[in-house]
Every structure is written in C-alpha cells, then in structure tokens.
C-alpha cells in the first residue's frame, strides 16, 4: 500500500481553486485573417488536481495554457491563478507571478544549450535575485527530486531526451510553484521515458500538493491525471472525472472485464 494515497479533492470555489478560467475567448489577428482559438471556455482547476487537456490539433490547447500561464492575455473573459486575476496585474507583476508561482514544461524542453543541467535549473532563481550558492543548492535538490542528480554537470546535448525533460521539470519545480503547466511533455519521448515524466508529474501532485495542468495527445498521459477535459474548436467538449485508482489486487481481480 505504499503508493496509492487517498486525496480528497477540495471544493471548487475561489479559495481552493488553483486556476479559474471564466468566459475566455482568444482571437488572433483581425479582420478576414482573424482566428478564434478559444470561443468561450470555463474551467475550474481545484488545488492539488492533475488535469489533462486533450483535443485535436488546433483546438486551442496551447493557447489555453499560454493564457493561464500569463504568457498572453485573453481577448475576453477572466483568468485567475491562485486567486489572483491576471488582468489586474501589470506586465512586471505578471513576470513575477510566472517566475515564482508557475512552472512551465514544454515538448521541446527549452533548455539553454550552453548551460549545464544545474545551471539551467538555477538560472531562474538567480534571475529572481536568489544568491548563487543558494540557487545551486536548490537546483541540486530539484535535480535530485527528478532522479538525475548525477547528471548536474552535463549540458543538454550530452543528455537523452528523457533526461533533458527531467531537467526541464527540475527547473519548473525549483521555485516551488503552486502550478505546473506542461504542454505535451511526453510528445517527444519514447514510451519508457514518457512514463518516467508522467510518474514525476503524478508525484508532484501526490506529494507536493501542487497543481498540474498538462496538454497531451497520449491516452496514457491523460490516464495519469485525475481529470481530463477535451477541447474541440475552442470549446470544452468533454469533462471527465477519472477518479482515484483501486488497489493492485482489486484491479487484477476485474482485469478480465476489459475484454467485454
């Protein structure tokens, strides 16, 4: 019984929600070439939830993630992260929020090639004014957490894709953000490396009580989450609570029903 922890989802009012998306529309461009990427999206992500976002290509998944991460602003509607309305923040305040409260993980890792793993992870802290020694200590702890402490001195090109993605996760976690945003974090990995990344994100939620919002095309990725929403043409088309898993013995006892 080591790994299955019972986690009661908190209620989804403002105080316990990590993210609230309300009536959000996003239009790129103007006039004839305008693209309506999001057409009225409402989502509440409770604190400590692992939410997967699926949907066909072009359905607005990355756009949604960017808006929640404060990388871009909606055309209409409001977005709250940790109870803060992003529209009320200046660009500088938004930058601070991104640095301290949100961690990003991307499909192509986005590591700086000339820096070592440890430097990549420590960098955002130093940019935020943390002293070098402390930043490297925290970076080391974060690399340890994702299981690649032994690779700290390596540059990205000297690491496998799976290892690079774990460095990216260490970087996303180092500031101890309340929210992790991941855009197809396993999209560029084989299934074994992808599973390690999913396990890590799952642990982040189970142990750190952090909230994860992850875009994925992979059903196995979605099945690691607590809930899956499906975007279609810029709208939420489906919303599925996936629940907590039963024990291994229980699952085994009714595995055969799969063949229905």
């Amino acid at each position, binding site marked *: 019984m080591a790994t299955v922890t019972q986690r009661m989802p908190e209620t989804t009012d403002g105080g316990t929600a990590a993210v609230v998306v309300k009536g959000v529309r996003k239009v790129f461009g103007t006039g004839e070439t305008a693209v309506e990427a999001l057409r009225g999206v409402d989502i509440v992500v409770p604190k400590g939830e692992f939410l997967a976002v699926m949907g066909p290509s072009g359905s607005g998944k990355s756009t949604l993630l960017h808006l929640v991460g404060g990388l871009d602003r909606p055309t209409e509607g409001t977005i709250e992260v940790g109870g803060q309305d992003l529209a009320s923040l200046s660009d500088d305040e938004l930058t601070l929020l991104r640095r301290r409260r949100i961690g990003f993980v991307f499909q192509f890792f986005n590591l700086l090639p000339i820096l070592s793993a440890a430097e990549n992870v420590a960098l955002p802290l130093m940019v935020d004014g943390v002293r070098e020694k402390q930043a490297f200590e925290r970076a080391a702890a974060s690399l340890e957490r994702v299981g690649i402490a032994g690779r700290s001195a390596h540059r990205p090109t000297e690491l496998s894709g799976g290892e690079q993605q774990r460095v990216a996760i260490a970087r996303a976690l180092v500031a101890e953000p309340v929210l992790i945003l991941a855009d197809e974090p396993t999209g560029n990995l084989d299934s074994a490396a992808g599973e390690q990344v999913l396990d890590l994100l799952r642990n982040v939620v189970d142990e750190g009580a952090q909230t994860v919002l992850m875009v994925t095309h992979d059903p196995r990725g979605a099945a690691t989450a607590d809930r899956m929403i499906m975007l279609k043409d810029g709208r939420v088309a489906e919303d599925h609570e996936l629940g907590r898993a039963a024990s291994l013995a229980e699952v085994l006892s009714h*595995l055969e029903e799969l063949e229905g």
Partner: protein
Amino acid sequence: MSVKHAFLGLLAEGPLHGYELKLSFEERLLPSSPLNYGQVYGSLERLERDGLVEHEVIVQEERPDKKVYRITAAGLGELDRWLRNPSVPALDLRNETFLKLAVARRLGDIDTAEVLASERRGSLRRLREVTEARRQAGAEGKGVQLLLLLDLAAFRLEAFLKWLERCEELFDQEATTNGNGNAEDA
C-alpha cells in the same frame, strides 16, 4: 486463449492434479484469469481424449481419490508445435462500442458524439486504474510477468481510446462533406 496448451506447459514441468493445475495457472501464468472447475476438468478431458495427457488414480485415506495428470510424448510434441507457431491475433471485433455507434447512427435520436464521450470516459477510467496498478506493481518490485500483463491491458485500452478519436474524426468529416447540421456551430 488455450487453457489446454497452458496445462500442457505446466505438466511439462511435472505431474499435477486438477486443483494444482488451476492454482498454478492462476499463480504462475495468468493472474487476471481465474478458471472455473468446468474449464479445468473440461480441458483435461479433452487433452486425455486426444492422448496428450494421461492420469493415474491416487487412492487417499479419508479423502476422495485424486487423479494425477502427466504429459505424454504426443503432448510434448503438441506443446512444442503450439509454442513455435503464431497465434491468431485476437481482434475483439465483436465490439460493444462499435455496435452502439452503429445503432446510434441508424436511429439518429442520440448523437454519436455523446456515445463517444461516454465510451471515452469509461475507457479512460479503466486506463486510469490500470496505469495506477502498473505504477504500484512497478514500485513494489513485482515480477516482470505481472508488469507485462498490466502493460498489455494498458496498450489495448490506449489503442481503443485512439480508435475512439478516429471515430470522432471520421464522423466529423462525414458531417462536413454531407453538409448536414451534425457539426454544431453557433
């Protein structure tokens, strides 16, 4: 799945009686598939009829006599043949979801998108369970055989979920080319 051949495999390791065969099958081979006594004794009868196994009656005091089965030379040959030849891949095409979609399309009073959404929810919840069980089994250091069985379940569910996505794509495409009002647009 051939219970008969699995039994030949277990008997190739040494003689067993019926109940031991059932237990060995469930413990060593397929923990997800308990056998009922009908399957156990039915399989043994057929194996014996075909000359692939034979039995010897052991008389026991105070308990019913038991039959101990052993594999014959013909049985070893059949086991070898089974192991070396490809199985017919089970495609599970008598698929319940497929039937629901086919019926829904004919009746038209329930949207196929709704059927797909509910099927997706069911399969995803199942995959969620299997994924978590797989994580648990891995963390507890369970043997590779159990891990692979759970992987087989997971890969199947994954493939099925991908097929549901394909259904949606093709239904959408069909609705667009037919220009009917199936695709909602505000």
